[in-house]
């Protein structure tokens, strides 16, 4: 049912509909409203357990314990909260615990800021979590049941990311699929292995060099092999809800005949689409390749879509200090791996909530008219 509500509250509603058992949250702007709404649902008896932890490190740690005991789990955080979880994010991926977390993306200190960029998740890129970047609240709500399905079938943790404030605090019309609809798609969580006194297992072992690389290789292969399940899950759920967001890994917005393309993630893509529509009315052949699955990264889709393009601009809402920005690096790697030669320019913008508008997107397309490779802040 379509309702007018805040993005954060729609996310909270969906967590109830996904029948999460154990939550552990620590408030941090801009994810706070999700945690607050879920607390109300706990108070109302709609969430079985909610641990009001004393820090984010404990939030993710508590979920590790709960997930290992066979509970469906959820937490939400932002920025320094993600950073404080860092060590445990790697550990739970290695332990194959299917935790789902919603990150409301925000800049990392310093300077301290509370507004959106993607710097907070960049250090977690290599953690073994599946990272799904949503453009809209509707997409985030529709992605959460998929996140649980992927996590629990692949035994990998999944992060569903939304742009802080732009989405978390936006009040708009959102259709939150009901519990009955979600139940049709998402089976009960029944893990093959869990902490159970009837069948004792040891989890979180210590490993010598003889075995450790084998564990890491298995994990690497499983994250790589998640691309097909991500596509399949998106296809399956989109048939139920009659909405879809590309193929689950990427969204191709008017790229087929485009000469110039912007590659970007999350809410800025809405403005890029707006710019594309305006420019196409003037006869300009422009398109957007939106990366939905940041990890695993859709190298093949990127290679396919960038075939025979004239100039590509990668928009990063984060920096890699002393190196090329993160999304740009991934796109370069994808293209180096193919037989194509396409100029790829780098644009960094929207850091710490700096506005990135339709005008910003148009300016990038203007820059892409030149054949010269650019690397700049916008």
């Amino acid at each position, binding site marked *: 049912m379509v309702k007018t509500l805040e993005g954060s509250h729609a996310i909270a509603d969906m967590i109830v509909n996904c029948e999460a*058992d*154990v939550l*552990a949250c620590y408030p941090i702007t801009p994810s706070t409203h999700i945690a607050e709404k879920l607390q109300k649902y706990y108070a109302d008896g709609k969430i*079985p*357990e909610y*641990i*009001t*932890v*004393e*820090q984010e*490190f*404990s*939030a993710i*740690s*508590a*979920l*590790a*314990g*709960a*997930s*290992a*005991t*066979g*509970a469906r*789990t959820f937490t939400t955080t932002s920025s320094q909260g993600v950073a404080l979880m860092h*060590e*445990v994010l790697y*550990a*739970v991926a290695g*332990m194959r615990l299917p935790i789902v977390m919603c990150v409301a993306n925000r800049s990392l200190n310093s300077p301290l800021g509370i507004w959106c960029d993607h710097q907070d998740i960049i250090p977690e890129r290599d953690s073994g979590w599946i990272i799904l970047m949503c453009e809209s609240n509707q997409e985030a709500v529709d992605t959460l049941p998929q996140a649980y399905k992927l996590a629990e079938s692949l035994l990998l943790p999944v992060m569903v990311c939304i742009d802080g404030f732009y989405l978390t605090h936006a009040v708009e019309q959102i259709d939150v699929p009901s519990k009955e609809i979600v139940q049709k798609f998402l089976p009960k969580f029944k893990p093959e292995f869990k*902490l*159970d*006194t009837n069948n*004792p*297992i*040891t*989890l*979180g*072992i*210590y*490993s*010598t060099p003889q*075995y450790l690389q084998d564990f890491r290789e298995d994990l690497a292969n499983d994250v790589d092999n998640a691309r097909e399940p991500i596509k399949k899950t998106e296809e399956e759920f989109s048939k139920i809800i009659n909405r879809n967001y590309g193929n689950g890994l990427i969204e191709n917005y008017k790229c087929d005949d485009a000469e110039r393309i912007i590659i970007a993630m999350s809410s800025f893509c809405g403005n890029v689409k707006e710019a594309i529509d305006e420019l196409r009315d003037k006869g300009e052949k422009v398109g957007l390749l939106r990366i939905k699955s940041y990890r695993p990264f859709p190298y093949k889709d990127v290679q396919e879509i960038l075939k025979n393009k004239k100039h590509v601009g990668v928009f990063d809402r984060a920096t890699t200090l002393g190196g090329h920005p993160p999304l740009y690096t991934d796109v370069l790697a994808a293209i180096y791996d193919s037989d194509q030669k396409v100029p790829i320019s780098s644009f960094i913008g929207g850091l710490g909530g700096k506005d990135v508008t339709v005008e910003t997107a148009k300016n990038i397309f203007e820059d892409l008219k030149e054949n010269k490779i650019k690397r700049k802040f916008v």
Partner: protein
Amino acid sequence: MVVFKREDDIFTSGHTACAGCGAALAIRTIMRAIGKDCIVVNTTSCSEIFSVCFPRSAWKVPYIHVTFENGASVASGVSRALKAQGNDHTKVVVIAGDGGTADIGFGAVSGSWERNEDILYIMYNNGAYENTGIQRSSQTPQYAWSTTSQIGEEVRGKQEPIKPMVKIAAAHGIPYAASASTGYLIDLENKVKKALNIKGSRFIDVLSPCVPGWKYDPQLTVELAKLAVETGLWKLNEIENGDINNEKITVQPSFKPVEEYLKLQGRFKHLTPDEIKIIQARVNKDWGR
């Protein structure tokens, strides 16, 4: 007196702890007292390294380790998941070292106590980061040598007294906080059994001598753990429901001179007669003598 058989062991032999390891003795005793209806949460520590080196495990009950500093949080999650599943009988037990509890994991521990999570938290206290090569912790005794409290011309060993974890635990108002020693296994067992029958947060601080860290003859583990109590340096106590003015002493010390305990350990071999006098004076003051 209960006689245990080897097959009763839940923490089994074949682990790789040092000969004379106080922690291994403590854990074996504690686990015998707890029985099989429990889930163990361990933190990164000697006990993790010597009990779960892949592909072996010394544990006959479900076991989880995640990181060094999050035992109390992981256990909170396990406990709440059991509650969500309607399981009101399985015990959740944390086995953690003093560094993982009193230092790096203190925030998580304090948080779990503030929430009065239904967890039995055992801190086996060997008084240093023994696993990483004997670095000082907040539980290292005053004047003791460690690799990060060295003996020099300007500074002689650790300068600060031990952070009082039982009092701190009790000050959170949790239902049960106690101190035990591997020199008094029946007292330890009694405390574990008592704690098992209480709901909410329970904390037991168990003195567990460490052969390489304390530098003593491995056959003296129990002897040292006894002497610590007999000299009054280590108090065997219980505080219930946060009533810190009502501390119960479970074993009265005979007040042997502290020197008898200190002289057996390499970590104290640099002590001067004056320093030993200071330690003795502090013990006397602690006990109102």
